[in-house]
Protein backbone atom coordinates (compact mmCIF):
# COMPACT_ATOMS: atom_id res chain seq x y z
CA UNK A 1 0.00 0.00 0.00
CA UNK A 2 1.21 3.49 -0.84
CA UNK A 3 2.34 5.74 1.97
CA UNK A 4 0.11 8.56 0.70
CA UNK A 5 -2.87 6.27 0.82
CA UNK A 6 -2.14 5.48 4.47
CA UNK A 7 -2.05 9.16 5.38
CA UNK A 8 -5.27 9.71 3.50
CA UNK A 9 -6.83 6.92 5.53
CA UNK A 10 -5.96 8.72 8.74
CA UNK A 11 -7.51 11.98 7.61
CA UNK A 12 -10.74 10.65 6.23
CA UNK A 13 -12.21 8.16 8.67
CA UNK A 14 -15.46 7.51 6.79
CA UNK A 15 -13.72 7.03 3.50
CA UNK A 16 -11.10 5.05 5.35
CA UNK A 17 -13.69 2.63 6.62
CA UNK A 18 -14.93 1.87 3.12
CA UNK A 19 -11.46 1.71 1.67
CA UNK A 20 -10.25 -0.49 4.50
CA UNK A 21 -13.18 -2.82 3.99
CA UNK A 22 -12.40 -3.02 0.29
CA UNK A 23 -8.76 -3.62 1.02
CA UNK A 24 -9.61 -6.22 3.60
CA UNK A 25 -11.89 -8.12 1.22
CA UNK A 26 -9.24 -7.88 -1.47
CA UNK A 27 -6.55 -9.25 0.83
CA UNK A 28 -8.91 -11.90 2.19
CA UNK A 29 -9.66 -13.04 -1.36
CA UNK A 30 -5.93 -13.12 -2.15
CA UNK A 31 -5.13 -15.06 1.02
CA UNK A 32 -7.95 -17.53 0.45
CA UNK A 33 -6.97 -18.14 -3.16
CA UNK A 34 -3.40 -18.81 -1.99
CA UNK A 35 -4.73 -21.29 0.54
CA UNK A 36 -7.17 -22.82 -1.94
CA UNK A 37 -10.20 -22.05 0.25
CA UNK A 38 -13.33 -20.10 -0.62
CA UNK A 39 -14.16 -16.54 0.39
CA UNK A 40 -17.34 -16.29 2.49
CA UNK A 41 -20.00 -14.42 0.51
CA UNK A 42 -20.91 -10.90 1.58
CA UNK A 43 -23.69 -10.78 4.16
CA UNK A 44 -23.11 -14.37 5.22
CA UNK A 45 -23.43 -14.63 9.01
CA UNK A 46 -19.71 -15.19 9.57
CA UNK A 47 -18.75 -14.41 13.17
CA UNK A 48 -16.69 -11.19 13.49
CA UNK A 49 -13.89 -12.89 15.42
CA UNK A 50 -13.39 -15.39 12.64
CA UNK A 51 -12.32 -12.76 10.14
CA UNK A 52 -8.79 -12.32 8.96
CA UNK A 53 -6.83 -9.73 10.91
CA UNK A 54 -4.17 -7.87 8.90
CA UNK A 55 -1.09 -6.10 10.18
CA UNK A 56 0.95 -4.14 7.68
CA UNK A 57 4.06 -2.00 7.99
CA UNK A 58 6.47 -0.11 5.82
CA UNK A 59 9.89 0.69 7.23
CA UNK A 60 12.78 2.84 6.02
CA UNK A 61 16.26 2.25 7.40
CA UNK A 62 18.99 4.66 6.34
CA UNK A 63 22.61 4.91 7.47
CA UNK A 64 24.48 8.11 6.75
CA UNK A 65 26.67 7.35 3.66
CA UNK A 66 26.12 3.59 3.91
CA UNK A 67 23.20 1.18 3.61
CA UNK A 68 19.62 2.18 2.85
CA UNK A 69 16.85 -0.38 3.17
CA UNK A 70 13.10 -0.35 2.70
CA UNK A 71 11.10 -3.21 4.17
CA UNK A 72 7.40 -3.98 3.87
CA UNK A 73 5.43 -6.55 5.85
CA UNK A 74 1.93 -7.92 5.41
CA UNK A 75 0.85 -10.32 8.14
CA UNK A 76 -2.52 -12.06 8.22
CA UNK A 77 -3.94 -13.98 11.17
CA UNK A 78 -7.18 -15.89 11.38
CA UNK A 79 -8.70 -17.49 14.43
CA UNK A 80 -10.59 -20.66 13.67
CA UNK A 81 -12.79 -22.48 16.17
CA UNK A 82 -11.34 -23.65 19.46
CA UNK A 83 -8.51 -21.11 19.64
CA UNK A 84 -6.78 -22.37 16.53
CA UNK A 85 -4.74 -19.70 14.79
CA UNK A 86 -3.23 -19.55 11.33
CA UNK A 87 -0.70 -16.80 10.68
CA UNK A 88 0.85 -15.92 7.34
CA UNK A 89 3.49 -13.26 6.82
CA UNK A 90 5.04 -11.82 3.70
CA UNK A 91 8.15 -9.63 3.97
CA UNK A 92 9.79 -7.82 1.09
CA UNK A 93 12.88 -5.71 1.47
CA UNK A 94 15.22 -3.88 -0.78
CA UNK A 95 18.76 -2.94 0.15
CA UNK A 96 21.17 -0.60 -1.58
CA UNK A 97 24.35 1.17 -0.62
CA UNK A 98 27.75 0.61 0.84
CA UNK A 99 29.05 -1.57 3.65
CA UNK A 100 32.46 -1.51 5.38
CA UNK A 101 34.58 -4.25 3.80
CA UNK A 102 36.89 -4.62 6.81
CA UNK A 103 40.00 -2.96 5.33
CA UNK A 104 41.65 -0.14 7.30
CA UNK A 105 41.54 3.53 6.25
CA UNK A 106 44.85 4.85 4.92
CA UNK A 107 46.22 8.40 4.48
CA UNK A 108 46.11 7.88 0.70
CA UNK A 109 43.63 6.72 -1.93
CA UNK A 110 43.13 2.94 -1.94
CA UNK A 111 41.84 0.87 -4.84
CA UNK A 112 40.04 -2.45 -4.34
CA UNK A 113 38.88 -5.17 -6.70
CA UNK A 114 35.13 -5.71 -6.33
CA UNK A 115 34.22 -9.00 -4.58
CA UNK A 116 32.50 -10.15 -7.78
CA UNK A 117 35.81 -9.79 -9.62
CA UNK A 118 34.20 -7.27 -11.97
CA UNK A 119 35.98 -3.92 -11.85
CA UNK A 120 37.49 -1.87 -9.07
CA UNK A 121 36.50 0.94 -6.72
CA UNK A 122 38.58 3.69 -5.12
CA UNK A 123 38.40 4.85 -1.50
CA UNK A 124 39.45 8.45 -0.68
CA UNK A 125 42.32 9.17 1.68
CA UNK A 126 41.44 8.79 5.38
CA UNK A 127 38.05 7.19 4.77
CA UNK A 128 36.78 3.81 5.93
CA UNK A 129 36.76 1.52 2.87
CA UNK A 130 33.14 0.87 1.90
CA UNK A 131 32.16 -1.62 -0.76
CA UNK A 132 29.34 0.11 -2.60
CA UNK A 133 28.10 -2.85 -4.62
CA UNK A 134 25.32 -3.96 -2.29
CA UNK A 135 22.00 -4.09 -4.04
CA UNK A 136 19.54 -6.81 -3.23
CA UNK A 137 15.84 -7.54 -3.00
CA UNK A 138 14.64 -10.17 -0.58
CA UNK A 139 11.37 -12.00 -0.30
CA UNK A 140 10.42 -13.85 2.89
CA UNK A 141 7.38 -15.93 3.72
CA UNK A 142 6.41 -17.30 7.12
CA UNK A 143 3.50 -19.47 8.10
CA UNK A 144 2.54 -20.72 11.54
CA UNK A 145 -0.28 -22.80 12.94
CA UNK A 146 -1.17 -22.81 16.64
CA UNK A 147 -3.75 -25.03 18.26
CA UNK A 148 -4.64 -26.37 21.72
CA UNK A 149 -3.88 -30.07 22.21
CA UNK A 150 -5.70 -30.47 25.52
CA UNK A 151 -6.93 -27.91 28.08
CA UNK A 152 -3.39 -27.16 29.24
CA UNK A 153 -1.23 -27.95 26.22
CA UNK A 154 -0.84 -25.84 23.08
CA UNK A 155 1.23 -26.75 20.05
CA UNK A 156 2.59 -24.44 17.39
CA UNK A 157 4.39 -25.25 14.15
CA UNK A 158 5.90 -22.93 11.57
CA UNK A 159 7.71 -22.64 8.26
CA UNK A 160 10.16 -19.99 7.07
CA UNK A 161 11.59 -19.28 3.62
CA UNK A 162 13.69 -16.31 2.54
CA UNK A 163 15.22 -15.74 -0.88
CA UNK A 164 17.45 -13.01 -2.24
CA UNK A 165 19.72 -12.90 -5.27
CA UNK A 166 22.65 -14.70 -3.64
CA UNK A 167 21.08 -16.19 -0.51
CA UNK A 168 18.47 -18.78 0.40
CA UNK A 169 17.21 -19.59 3.89
CA UNK A 170 14.71 -22.34 4.73
CA UNK A 171 13.48 -23.19 8.20
CA UNK A 172 10.91 -25.00 10.28
CA UNK A 173 10.00 -24.78 13.92
CA UNK A 174 7.73 -26.32 16.53
CA UNK A 175 6.91 -25.42 20.09
CA UNK A 176 4.83 -26.82 22.90
CA UNK A 177 3.45 -24.85 25.85
CA UNK A 178 1.90 -26.12 29.07
CA UNK A 179 -0.19 -23.98 31.41
CA UNK A 180 -0.16 -24.49 35.17
CA UNK A 181 -1.62 -22.80 38.22
CA UNK A 182 -4.85 -21.33 36.67
CA UNK A 183 -2.82 -20.30 33.59
CA UNK A 184 -0.63 -18.08 35.75
CA UNK A 185 2.45 -20.08 34.84
CA UNK A 186 3.27 -21.19 31.29
CA UNK A 187 6.22 -23.35 30.40
CA UNK A 188 7.37 -23.52 26.77
CA UNK A 189 9.80 -25.66 24.83
CA UNK A 190 10.64 -24.86 21.24
CA UNK A 191 12.81 -26.22 18.48
CA UNK A 192 13.84 -24.68 15.15
CA UNK A 193 16.07 -25.79 12.30
CA UNK A 194 17.35 -23.69 9.40
CA UNK A 195 19.29 -24.38 6.24
CA UNK A 196 21.01 -21.40 4.60
CA UNK A 197 22.81 -21.33 1.28
CA UNK A 198 24.96 -18.52 -0.06
CA UNK A 199 26.03 -18.14 -3.68
CA UNK A 200 27.96 -14.86 -3.89
CA UNK A 201 28.60 -13.39 -7.31
CA UNK A 202 32.13 -14.36 -8.30
CA UNK A 203 32.11 -17.39 -5.99
CA UNK A 204 33.32 -18.25 -2.48
CA UNK A 205 36.69 -16.61 -1.83
CA UNK A 206 39.63 -18.69 -0.64
CA UNK A 207 39.87 -17.83 3.09
CA UNK A 208 43.13 -16.12 4.15
CA UNK A 209 44.32 -15.91 0.49
CA UNK A 210 45.84 -12.59 -0.57
CA UNK A 211 43.48 -10.49 -2.68
CA UNK A 212 44.60 -9.83 -6.22
CA UNK A 213 46.19 -6.44 -6.75
CA UNK A 214 43.46 -4.58 -8.66
CA UNK A 215 46.00 -2.94 -10.98
CA UNK A 216 48.04 -5.92 -12.04
CA UNK A 217 46.53 -9.29 -11.16
CA UNK A 218 43.24 -10.81 -12.18
CA UNK A 219 41.21 -13.30 -10.11
CA UNK A 220 42.26 -16.90 -10.62
CA UNK A 221 41.63 -20.30 -9.01
CA UNK A 222 43.80 -19.42 -6.01
CA UNK A 223 41.24 -16.77 -5.02
CA UNK A 224 38.11 -18.92 -5.28
CA UNK A 225 37.18 -22.26 -3.74
CA UNK A 226 33.70 -22.82 -5.14
CA UNK A 227 30.51 -21.18 -6.23
CA UNK A 228 28.32 -21.71 -3.15
CA UNK A 229 28.38 -22.89 0.46
CA UNK A 230 25.88 -23.49 3.23
CA UNK A 231 25.22 -23.63 6.96
CA UNK A 232 22.71 -25.29 9.27
CA UNK A 233 21.25 -23.85 12.47
CA UNK A 234 19.56 -25.72 15.31
CA UNK A 235 17.80 -23.60 17.94
CA UNK A 236 16.32 -24.81 21.22
CA UNK A 237 14.31 -22.50 23.45
CA UNK A 238 13.04 -23.06 26.98
CA UNK A 239 10.78 -20.46 28.52
CA UNK A 240 8.70 -19.70 31.60
CA UNK A 241 6.03 -17.00 31.70
CA UNK A 242 4.67 -16.02 35.09
CA UNK A 243 1.81 -13.73 36.05
CA UNK A 244 3.06 -11.94 39.17
CA UNK A 245 -0.10 -10.04 40.11
CA UNK A 246 -2.93 -8.10 38.48
CA UNK A 247 -0.43 -5.55 37.11
CA UNK A 248 2.71 -7.52 36.33
CA UNK A 249 3.83 -10.34 34.07
CA UNK A 250 7.31 -11.75 33.61
CA UNK A 251 9.06 -14.02 31.12
CA UNK A 252 12.36 -15.81 31.30
CA UNK A 253 13.82 -17.66 28.30
CA UNK A 254 16.97 -19.69 27.80
CA UNK A 255 18.04 -20.32 24.21
CA UNK A 256 20.73 -22.48 22.75
CA UNK A 257 21.76 -22.12 19.13
CA UNK A 258 24.18 -24.30 17.22
CA UNK A 259 25.35 -23.14 13.82
CA UNK A 260 27.54 -25.31 11.56
CA UNK A 261 28.97 -24.67 8.13
CA UNK A 262 30.06 -21.59 6.23
CA UNK A 263 29.99 -18.72 8.75
CA UNK A 264 32.56 -16.54 6.98
CA UNK A 265 31.39 -13.37 5.25
CA UNK A 266 32.59 -13.70 1.62
CA UNK A 267 32.59 -9.90 1.18
CA UNK A 268 34.88 -9.10 4.13
CA UNK A 269 38.64 -8.68 4.00
CA UNK A 270 41.47 -7.88 6.44
CA UNK A 271 44.37 -5.47 5.83
CA UNK A 272 47.92 -6.63 6.42
CA UNK A 273 50.11 -3.68 7.43
CA UNK A 274 53.83 -3.05 7.94
CA UNK A 275 55.44 -1.50 11.05
CA UNK A 276 54.50 1.97 9.74
CA UNK A 277 50.84 1.02 9.50
CA UNK A 278 50.91 1.06 5.70
CA UNK A 279 48.81 -1.60 3.98
CA UNK A 280 50.93 -4.18 2.12
CA UNK A 281 48.05 -6.32 0.93
CA UNK A 282 44.64 -7.62 2.05
CA UNK A 283 43.48 -11.15 2.76
CA UNK A 284 40.02 -12.72 2.74
CA UNK A 285 38.60 -13.19 6.21
CA UNK A 286 38.00 -16.63 7.75
CA UNK A 287 35.67 -17.49 10.64
CA UNK A 288 35.35 -20.84 12.43
CA UNK A 289 32.90 -23.29 10.82
CA UNK A 290 30.79 -23.64 13.95
CA UNK A 291 29.31 -21.40 16.60
CA UNK A 292 27.42 -22.27 19.77
CA UNK A 293 25.42 -19.48 21.32
CA UNK A 294 23.55 -19.32 24.61
CA UNK A 295 21.24 -16.57 25.70
CA UNK A 296 19.06 -15.68 28.64
CA UNK A 297 16.23 -13.26 28.01
CA UNK A 298 14.21 -11.69 30.79
CA UNK A 299 11.20 -9.47 30.20
CA UNK A 300 8.83 -7.74 32.60
CA UNK A 301 5.73 -5.71 31.89
CA UNK A 302 4.03 -3.61 34.52
CA UNK A 303 0.72 -1.80 34.20
CA UNK A 304 0.62 1.38 36.29
CA UNK A 305 -2.71 3.24 36.64
CA UNK A 306 -2.74 4.10 32.95
CA UNK A 307 0.78 3.63 31.61
CA UNK A 308 2.66 0.41 30.79
CA UNK A 309 6.38 -0.16 31.16
CA UNK A 310 8.08 -2.94 29.19
CA UNK A 311 11.61 -3.83 30.25
CA UNK A 312 13.81 -6.57 28.86
CA UNK A 313 17.38 -7.70 29.27
CA UNK A 314 19.31 -10.28 27.27
CA UNK A 315 22.67 -11.76 28.09
CA UNK A 316 24.28 -13.72 25.28
CA UNK A 317 27.49 -15.71 25.35
CA UNK A 318 29.09 -18.00 22.78
CA UNK A 319 32.21 -20.01 21.96
CA UNK A 320 33.53 -17.15 19.80
CA UNK A 321 33.87 -15.24 23.08
CA UNK A 322 31.27 -12.68 22.04
CA UNK A 323 29.48 -11.72 25.25
CA UNK A 324 26.71 -9.22 24.84
CA UNK A 325 24.21 -7.34 27.00
CA UNK A 326 21.02 -5.80 25.65
CA UNK A 327 18.75 -3.54 27.71
CA UNK A 328 15.47 -2.42 26.23
CA UNK A 329 12.76 -0.27 27.79
CA UNK A 330 9.50 1.02 26.34
CA UNK A 331 7.02 3.19 28.18
CA UNK A 332 3.50 3.46 26.82
CA UNK A 333 1.56 6.57 27.79
CA UNK A 334 -2.08 7.10 26.77
CA UNK A 335 -2.64 10.33 24.85
CA UNK A 336 -6.16 11.26 23.86
CA UNK A 337 -7.62 8.18 22.23
CA UNK A 338 -4.16 6.99 21.18
CA UNK A 339 -0.81 6.56 22.88
CA UNK A 340 2.82 7.59 22.71
CA UNK A 341 5.68 5.22 23.44
CA UNK A 342 9.26 6.36 23.98
CA UNK A 343 11.87 3.60 23.51
CA UNK A 344 15.44 3.24 24.72
CA UNK A 345 17.81 0.41 23.87
CA UNK A 346 21.41 -0.10 24.89
CA UNK A 347 23.57 -2.86 23.46
CA UNK A 348 27.18 -3.77 24.20
CA UNK A 349 29.26 -6.63 22.87
CA UNK A 350 32.78 -7.89 23.39
CA UNK A 351 34.92 -8.82 20.41
CA UNK A 352 35.11 -12.33 18.97
CA UNK A 353 38.42 -14.01 19.77
CA UNK A 354 39.41 -13.91 16.08
CA UNK A 355 38.54 -10.23 15.58
CA UNK A 356 41.53 -8.11 14.45
CA UNK A 357 41.09 -4.60 13.06
CA UNK A 358 44.15 -5.44 10.87
CA UNK A 359 47.06 -7.90 10.95
CA UNK A 360 50.79 -7.16 11.03
CA UNK A 361 52.54 -8.60 8.01
CA UNK A 362 55.38 -9.99 10.16
CA UNK A 363 53.03 -11.89 12.48
CA UNK A 364 52.31 -15.59 12.10
CA UNK A 365 49.31 -16.08 9.84
CA UNK A 366 46.20 -16.51 12.06
CA UNK A 367 43.95 -19.60 11.85
CA UNK A 368 40.85 -17.41 11.87
CA UNK A 369 40.54 -13.70 11.37
CA UNK A 370 37.86 -11.11 10.70
CA UNK A 371 38.01 -7.31 10.73
CA UNK A 372 34.23 -6.99 10.44
CA UNK A 373 33.26 -4.40 13.09
CA UNK A 374 30.06 -6.39 13.70
CA UNK A 375 32.08 -9.09 15.47
CA UNK A 376 34.28 -6.49 17.19
CA UNK A 377 33.83 -4.64 20.44
CA UNK A 378 30.89 -2.28 20.20
CA UNK A 379 28.36 -0.18 22.05
CA UNK A 380 25.08 0.71 20.40
CA UNK A 381 22.19 2.96 21.35
CA UNK A 382 18.66 3.28 20.05
CA UNK A 383 16.37 6.16 20.92
CA UNK A 384 12.86 5.84 19.54
CA UNK A 385 9.40 7.26 19.66
CA UNK A 386 6.09 5.77 18.58
CA UNK A 387 2.66 7.30 18.22
CA UNK A 388 -0.35 5.05 17.79
CA UNK A 389 -3.93 6.05 17.12
CA UNK A 390 -6.96 3.79 17.07
CA UNK A 391 -9.33 4.15 14.12
CA UNK A 392 -12.85 2.79 13.81
CA UNK A 393 -13.64 -0.93 13.89
CA UNK A 394 -10.54 -1.91 15.82
CA UNK A 395 -8.16 -0.52 13.20
CA UNK A 396 -4.93 1.12 14.28
CA UNK A 397 -2.48 3.44 12.60
CA UNK A 398 0.95 4.05 14.10
CA UNK A 399 4.13 5.92 13.32
CA UNK A 400 7.56 5.15 14.67
CA UNK A 401 10.84 6.99 14.36
CA UNK A 402 14.12 5.78 15.84
CA UNK A 403 17.75 6.82 15.88
CA UNK A 404 20.36 4.06 16.05
CA UNK A 405 24.07 4.59 16.64
CA UNK A 406 26.87 2.03 16.72
CA UNK A 407 30.18 2.93 18.33
CA UNK A 408 32.82 0.31 17.51
CA UNK A 409 35.73 0.27 19.97
CA UNK A 410 39.36 -0.79 19.85
CA UNK A 411 39.59 -3.93 22.01
CA UNK A 412 43.21 -3.02 22.83
CA UNK A 413 45.31 -3.27 19.68
CA UNK A 414 48.27 -0.93 19.35
CA UNK A 415 47.98 1.18 16.22
CA UNK A 416 51.26 1.45 14.30
CA UNK A 417 52.32 4.60 12.38
CA UNK A 418 49.75 6.03 10.00
CA UNK A 419 46.89 4.04 11.54
CA UNK A 420 46.94 6.56 14.40
CA UNK A 421 46.06 9.31 11.94
CA UNK A 422 42.90 7.68 10.63
CA UNK A 423 39.63 6.62 12.28
CA UNK A 424 39.59 2.81 12.39
CA UNK A 425 36.54 2.62 14.63
CA UNK A 426 34.10 4.89 12.92
CA UNK A 427 30.59 5.27 14.34
CA UNK A 428 27.60 4.29 12.24
CA UNK A 429 24.43 6.35 12.54
CA UNK A 430 21.07 5.27 11.21
CA UNK A 431 17.55 6.61 11.05
CA UNK A 432 14.56 4.26 11.15
CA UNK A 433 11.08 5.43 10.16
CA UNK A 434 8.04 3.18 10.14
CA UNK A 435 4.34 3.43 9.45
CA UNK A 436 2.01 0.60 10.48
CA UNK A 437 -1.63 -0.06 9.81
CA UNK A 438 -3.70 -2.86 11.33
CA UNK A 439 -7.22 -3.68 10.19
Amino acid at each position, binding site marked *: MQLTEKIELANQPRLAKNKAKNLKSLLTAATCSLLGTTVPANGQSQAEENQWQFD*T*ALMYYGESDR*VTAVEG*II*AATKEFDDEEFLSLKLTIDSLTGASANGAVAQPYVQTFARPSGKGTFAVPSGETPLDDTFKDT*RLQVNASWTRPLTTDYTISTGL*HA*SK*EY*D*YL*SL*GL*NASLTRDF*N*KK*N*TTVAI*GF*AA*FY*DEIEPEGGIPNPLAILPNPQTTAFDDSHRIGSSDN*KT*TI*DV*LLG*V*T*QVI*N*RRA*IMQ*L*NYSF*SMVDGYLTDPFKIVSSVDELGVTQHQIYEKRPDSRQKH*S*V*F*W*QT*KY*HFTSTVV*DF*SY*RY*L*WDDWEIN*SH*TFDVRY*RIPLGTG*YIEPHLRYYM*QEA*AEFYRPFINQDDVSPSYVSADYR*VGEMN*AYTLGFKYGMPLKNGQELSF*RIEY*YQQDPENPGYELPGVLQEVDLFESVEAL*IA*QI*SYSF
Partner: protein
Amino acid sequence: MKKIYQVNILLIVLLISSGCSSLGVEPWERDLLARKEMALNASPIDAALDDHIYFSKEASSGGRSFAGGGCGCN
Protein backbone atom coordinates in the same frame (compact mmCIF):
# COMPACT_ATOMS: atom_id res chain seq x y z
CA MET B 1 33.47 -12.09 34.61
CA LYS B 2 31.47 -14.47 32.42
CA LYS B 3 31.16 -17.00 35.27
CA ILE B 4 29.78 -14.31 37.61
CA TYR B 5 27.05 -13.42 35.11
CA GLN B 6 26.13 -17.05 34.67
CA VAL B 7 25.92 -17.64 38.43
CA ASN B 8 23.79 -14.48 38.84
CA ILE B 9 21.43 -15.63 36.12
CA LEU B 10 21.11 -19.05 37.75
CA LEU B 11 20.25 -17.33 41.05
CA ILE B 12 17.57 -15.21 39.39
CA VAL B 13 16.07 -18.32 37.79
CA LEU B 14 16.00 -20.12 41.15
CA LEU B 15 14.46 -17.12 42.95
CA ILE B 16 11.77 -16.71 40.33
CA SER B 17 10.90 -20.40 40.13
CA SER B 18 10.78 -20.82 43.93
CA GLY B 19 8.35 -17.89 44.23
CA CYS B 20 6.07 -18.98 41.40
CA SER B 21 3.61 -21.12 43.37
CA SER B 22 2.38 -18.17 45.47
CA LEU B 23 2.16 -15.79 42.50
CA GLY B 24 -0.63 -15.16 40.06
CA VAL B 25 -4.21 -13.94 39.89
CA GLU B 26 -7.71 -15.35 39.85
CA PRO B 27 -9.43 -15.47 36.44
CA TRP B 28 -11.62 -12.44 37.30
CA GLU B 29 -8.53 -10.35 38.08
CA ARG B 30 -7.21 -10.46 34.53
CA ASP B 31 -8.73 -7.16 33.35
CA LEU B 32 -5.36 -5.40 32.90
CA LEU B 33 -3.38 -8.46 31.81
CA ALA B 34 -5.94 -9.17 29.08
CA ARG B 35 -5.28 -5.83 27.40
CA LYS B 36 -3.41 -5.92 24.11
CA GLU B 37 -0.69 -3.60 25.42
CA MET B 38 0.07 -6.06 28.23
CA ALA B 39 0.89 -8.89 25.80
CA LEU B 40 4.58 -9.78 26.13
CA ASN B 41 5.04 -9.22 22.41
CA ALA B 42 2.48 -6.43 21.97
CA SER B 43 3.84 -5.24 18.59
CA PRO B 44 5.07 -8.34 16.73
CA ILE B 45 5.62 -6.42 13.48
CA ASP B 46 7.86 -3.88 15.21
CA ALA B 47 9.71 -6.74 16.90
CA ALA B 48 10.22 -8.54 13.55
CA LEU B 49 11.60 -5.40 11.90
CA ASP B 50 13.87 -4.66 14.87
CA ASP B 51 15.13 -8.25 14.95
CA HIS B 52 16.05 -8.00 11.28
CA ILE B 53 17.99 -4.76 11.79
CA TYR B 54 19.91 -5.93 14.85
CA PHE B 55 20.51 -9.41 13.40
CA SER B 56 22.19 -7.71 10.41
CA LYS B 57 24.17 -5.14 12.39
CA GLU B 58 25.20 -6.90 15.60
CA ALA B 59 26.69 -10.27 16.55
CA SER B 60 23.72 -11.30 18.71
CA SER B 61 20.23 -12.49 17.80
CA GLY B 62 17.26 -14.25 19.34
CA GLY B 63 16.35 -14.36 23.02
CA ARG B 64 12.68 -13.46 22.81
CA SER B 65 12.25 -16.15 20.16
CA PHE B 66 14.47 -18.24 17.87
CA ALA B 67 17.83 -16.78 16.79
CA GLY B 68 17.24 -18.24 13.35
CA GLY B 69 18.88 -18.50 9.99
CA GLY B 70 17.84 -15.57 7.92
CA CYS B 71 19.52 -13.55 5.27
CA GLY B 72 22.80 -12.48 3.78
CA CYS B 73 22.12 -8.98 5.02
CA ASN B 74 24.94 -6.51 5.23
